[in-house]
């Protein structure tokens, strides 16, 4: 085929693809898609899957130290869900042509990124409340939007995840509410957890729109339906009244309801901190990578045993 012909065919594909996106139809694994769409989605989905997996670490830290058997069972169920969420998204990402093993390699070698929030430490039990309520709350806002994204496997994984994530956020809020109705020390612990987590959670939505390099393409392709700032605002608007209801103070002097815009105004986010955490200099980046690598190494015998057993059975 000559060059103009190839270009013409390519343009036909691009036009058909754009028409599908414009019509609100989903793109499925075997459909033609621009290479950049595939690459951006793969980056986004694998990062998302890694976040679910690394997200088990800060909470896993408290499994053996939960204050009651019930709390322990709940936390265990939540952490197990996160593993499942990682699997749903890896499985969606694999449809773009990269093996899960390769993605996991990229995580373990430090080449791939994951959500910045998991590079903050969980210092005490109140942090389990803060993480469930705020981190999962932010994730719900983000994922509810992604559930309508243009890539079918990603959207379907998000629908599954959103259904399960509501319990995560609610159990966290309940931990907070419970502590806020407790002793003065317990109330202080709960407030301290929010003081530490509030701003890093706002950073979860990514850089501000003016400084978000991948956003334009992703919005054009309807992978992202709302901008980082829009989602952040949505999270703040729904979270502030929840905080007020249990007597938690949001650590932001500039936070103020604006009756005209019907949104909360809030203080400036330290995006330099976000940049620093993303590039590997957060409080726990090295620890998380070590924990994840150790877990992978320590689990090797299980994977080997499973293969040995499968091979033995195949011979019988």
């Amino acid at each position, binding site marked *: 085929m000559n060059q103009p012909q190839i270009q013409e065919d390519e343009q036909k594909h691009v036009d058909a693809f754009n028409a599908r996106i414009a019509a609100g139809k989903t793109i499925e694994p075997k459909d*033609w898609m621009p290479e950049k769409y595939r690459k951006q989605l793969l980056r986004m989905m694998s990062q998302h899957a890694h976040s679910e997996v690394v997200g088990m670490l800060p909470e896993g830290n408290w499994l053996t130290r939960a204050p009651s058997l019930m709390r322990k069972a709940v936390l265990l169920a939540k952490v197990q869900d996160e593993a499942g969420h990682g699997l*749903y998204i890896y499985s969606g990402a*694999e449809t773009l042509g990269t093996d899960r093993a390769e993605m996991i390699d990229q995580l373990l070698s430090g080449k791939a990124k994951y959500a910045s929030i998991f590079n903050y430490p969980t210092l005490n039990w109140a942090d389990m409340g803060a993480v469930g309520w705020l981190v999962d709350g932010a994730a719900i806002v983000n994922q509810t939007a992604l559930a309508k994204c243009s890539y079918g496997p990603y959207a379907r*994984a998000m629908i599954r995840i959103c259904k399960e994530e509501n319990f995560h956020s609610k159990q966290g809020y309940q931990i907070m509410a419970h502590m806020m109705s407790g002793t003065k020390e317990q109330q202080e612990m709960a407030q301290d957890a929010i003081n530490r987590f509030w701003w890093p959670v706002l950073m979860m939505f990514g850089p501000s729109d003016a400084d978000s390099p991948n956003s334009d393409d992703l919005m054009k392709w309807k992978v992202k339906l709302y901008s980082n700032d829009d989602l952040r605002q949505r999270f703040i608007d729904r979270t502030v009244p929840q905080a007020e209801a249990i007597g938690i103070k949001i650590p932001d002097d500039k936070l103020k309801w604006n009756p005209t815009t019907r949104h909360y105004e809030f203080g400036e986010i330290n995006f330099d901190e976000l940049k620093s955490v993303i590039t590997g200099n957060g409080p726990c980046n090295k620890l998380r990578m070590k924990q994840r690598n150790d877990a992978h190494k320590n689990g090797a015998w299980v994977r080997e045993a499973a293969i040995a*057993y*499968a091979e033995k059975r195949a011979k019988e």
Partner: protein
Amino acid sequence: MSTKDNWPTWEVFTQQKNGAAHEHAGNVHAPDAEMALLNARDVYGRRQEAVNIWVVPSVAITASTPEDMGPFFEPGNDKMYRWPNYYKTPEGIKQI
């Protein structure tokens, strides 16, 4: 990473309640069918979503392709007489 570390995928079909059809839920990686079934239960059945599960090696599935979409399904497109509402019923007849 060796290919051994990337176990084959199995498509998972779950039956949500007795008597219902099995529906595709997603897939899992597993070294054999038995492990695939256990993984499928843990991944797709943590909240009573299934009373029965099938796992099928992904490579065993043959699917129509997006390019097929037009011609492959064409035979069904122009036969409206296959639907009951194609037929007009005389007024006054309540049931047929």
